[in-house]
């Protein structure tokens, strides 16, 4: 099957039970997407599929055949990445790619998203290090920049 990730095409050969998370990490060598729970709660595996944030551990690779996948490796120095660094939105970095992709999707869908919308969306993912304040501040800062 074919995976289109960050605009590049990957021809891969996987069992039907291979999750998208594992296919990205192993077959495509894109280890920026992390696996934290394999049952759809922590969100560390969040990637964007056809514009929507999804949990790559809950999708089979074959379900992504023909879809446009975006991962953290494709963000390329975004305002969000800059904001995470400026606002101390990460400590160990393990949950960070998932949050970046989640926030990217949220702000692309709604660049002027309200505080409540942002917090509601960010509650999809778990962080154990930061207590969330830096993550929320970073996403709101980018939203504020978009408003200006």
């Amino acid at each position, binding site marked *: 099957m074919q995976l289109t990730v960050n605009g590049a095409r990957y021809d891969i050969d996987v*069992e039907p*039970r*291979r999750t998208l998370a594992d296919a990205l*990490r*192993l077959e495509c060598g*894109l*280890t*920026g*997407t*992390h*696996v*934290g*729970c*394999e*049952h759809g*709660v*922590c969100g*560390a595996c969040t990637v964007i599929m056809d514009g929507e944030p999804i949990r790559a551990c809950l999708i089979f690779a074959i379900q992504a055949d023909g879809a446009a996948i975006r*991962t*953290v*490796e494709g*963000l390329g*120095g975004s305002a969000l*990445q800059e904001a*995470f*660094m*400026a606002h*101390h939105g*990460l*400590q*160990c*970095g*393990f*949950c*960070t*790619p998932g949050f*970046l992709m989640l926030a990217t999707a949220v702000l692309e869908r709604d660049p002027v998203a309200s505080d409540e919308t942002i*917090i*509601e969306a*960010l*509650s*999809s*993912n*778990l*962080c*154990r*290090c*930061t*207590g*969330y*304040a*830096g*993550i*929320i501040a970073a996403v709101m800062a980018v939203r504020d920049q978009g408003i200006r």
Partner: protein
Amino acid sequence: MRESEHWVGRAIRRKEDAALVAGQGCYTADLPAPRHVRFVRSPVAAGRIAAITASPGAQMFTAADLAGVAPLRPLIEKFGYVPITQKILADGVVRYCGEPIAAMVAATEAEAEDWAEQVTIEIDSTTPVTDALAALDPAAPIVRADAPGNLVLDTRFASATAAAEPALRLRSTIRSRRQNASPIEPRAAHAAFDRASGRVTLTCTTQTPHLMRTAIADLIGMPESELRVIAPDVGDGFGQKMSLAPEFVVLVWLARRLRTTLAWTEDRRENLMASFHSRDMSVTLEGGFAPDGRLLSIEADVIANVGAYAPYPNTAAVEPLMSLAELPGPYDFAAYACRARGVVTNTCASAPYRGVARPAITLAMERLMDKAAAALGLDPADIRRRNLVAAFPHTSPTGLVYDEGSYRETMEMALAAAAVPAFRARQAALRRENRYLGLGIAAFCERTGYGTPAFAARGMAVTPGWETVALSIDPSGFVEARIGASPHGQGLATTLAQIVADALGVTPDKVRVIHGDTDRTPYGFGTFASRSLVLSGGALTFAGRALRAKLGAIAAGLLEADAADIEIRDNVARIAGTDRTLPVAALARASYHQAHRFPALSPGLSETATYDPAGTFSNACHVAVVEVDVETYAVRIERFIVAEDAGRLINPMIAEGQIRGGVAQGIANALFEEIVYDGDTGDILTTTLADYLLPTCREIPPIEIHHLETISDATVTGAKGLGEGGTIGAPAAILNAINDALAPFGAVLDEIPATPLRIHAALALARS
């Protein structure tokens, strides 16, 4: 001439971040391997293994194959500790649900999992016991024959001072339920065999690479020099990754046996079942108070459920012993007696988790203070004012020396921020509308940055404490600091670079901190116990001073000036007050390639230094304002205030991040997280994140942080540790606030997590 501080104290961005936000971090599970390992684990809590049968074609290893590997036996040689052992793979008997029994090897993770699922294990189950109090019953099942009475520890302490006869004797018991540190990155190991040298490189999720190396080499019976341990990017740890995972030993053994490279990653279910648990404790206090609220005496009874095995290196005594030693906390009283017991049960081993024992003992003391205040008609702040240590140095009843701190001042600061009188007025008004708000205080001090002298008191066979660093400047003027600490999110590569930058007169971008590789760094004890910034920072200060002196001498020689007149700042050496300068790079180059010009100096720029202090105490006060919904029993945290004093803050942004993360875990400890076992079968019931509730951003309110900086002599950098404080005070502040909210009903709750079910039960009990 002494350069003023230039980088220390500034909230500069972290050097770690650029790679991590780009998804370019390298975590253990990111490493490819031709072979993968999956463990077969006990489905039952207790029993004798009758047979282990794999499908034909499976490559399976069991305890029989690992007969040459020694059992884990972490030791404490004091306090009558019973050193229970652990076979690396269960040998004949299983003692908790999830215990590893066999290792399956296959070409892929999926295949290894397939083989593991096909293994049948016949176990003759025996009756388990999972509750500590139940295990203390004389009729209880014996968890293990080498722990008579199901005890690994039953020790007592009594201070010399006898208590004056108190006006009020008050008894209070708290129950802290079992926690799992739950790092988002599950544990993983990658063992690579090098055919040329015969060495194994173990890349793993550890907080203590050198200790892992020593331990694993000992157990396998291999020279330590044949093992290299690397901690790559590690996705947080909170203590859970400081204890040796038996699975790591299996990986190294397999790499040597099969002469290949293997990888293992646990899944979340395995982490919840079979990593390490903590905080499963009951603490009963009997406090003696004078009529004015002065605390005269404490008698404590600490019971810790330590699980079926002992973690290396801290042993199964870590929580009860630390409770015994540190229970007096920030309060000034002399008559103290404590009995501390470690009880084995058929559960996963308990090991250090951020805060270690102090969340539970702080919970106990702070609940007692509130109850005493109520009994004596005192304000909860007043009773604390009367008892918080105010003169330093202060020696606790157990002989711990508290250096300069601000225990009262942080409480006043937090209370001022809380605007208590206005809150009380609002609380009263809202009660008339059937809404119940409460305010809770938790004052505490946190032992940090302590070296060998302090650890030695515990009598551990592995006595950690000192930290050594190797600081060098290469011919290009670039600085390398190699440390034995092992950060996993704490930002040490940044904060230590700030310290080194100030010590040498360079900029932090010219400083690379190397850590987490036993082939490249001096022997050290890793990162835990809020120690690394204090200890590695202190050692780097010493090494930095020595190198700075050398740089000054070289500059003096090259510039033909007095060393005393040399200033070094922003990578440039200058004769003070002149335009005569040389870049540090030129000094470095001369040191290596023109060494003959400096006969009084050794060639090159390299210094090692060790720091091994007695330790220091930071302090803080947490104040929580909550609302308890008396129909749904939900708790809403309206405000959470932290006033903390950790001495000099090297990087305020990083310091605040540590506080916020710790408080979030403390809040979750107070309200949500609980590992639950079935009391009859011993099965673990919380095996997914839908059962074990980690907080999302919705559950964590904005945390208001206030700082004080008390500089003490006990730490060379002026910095104290603060990484654990958030977990230590938050549960007590929240539980006290909940009790304050429920006070009109006469309801009392002394158990965490304070779930809706427990709040409902407390209210129902009060009504009856």
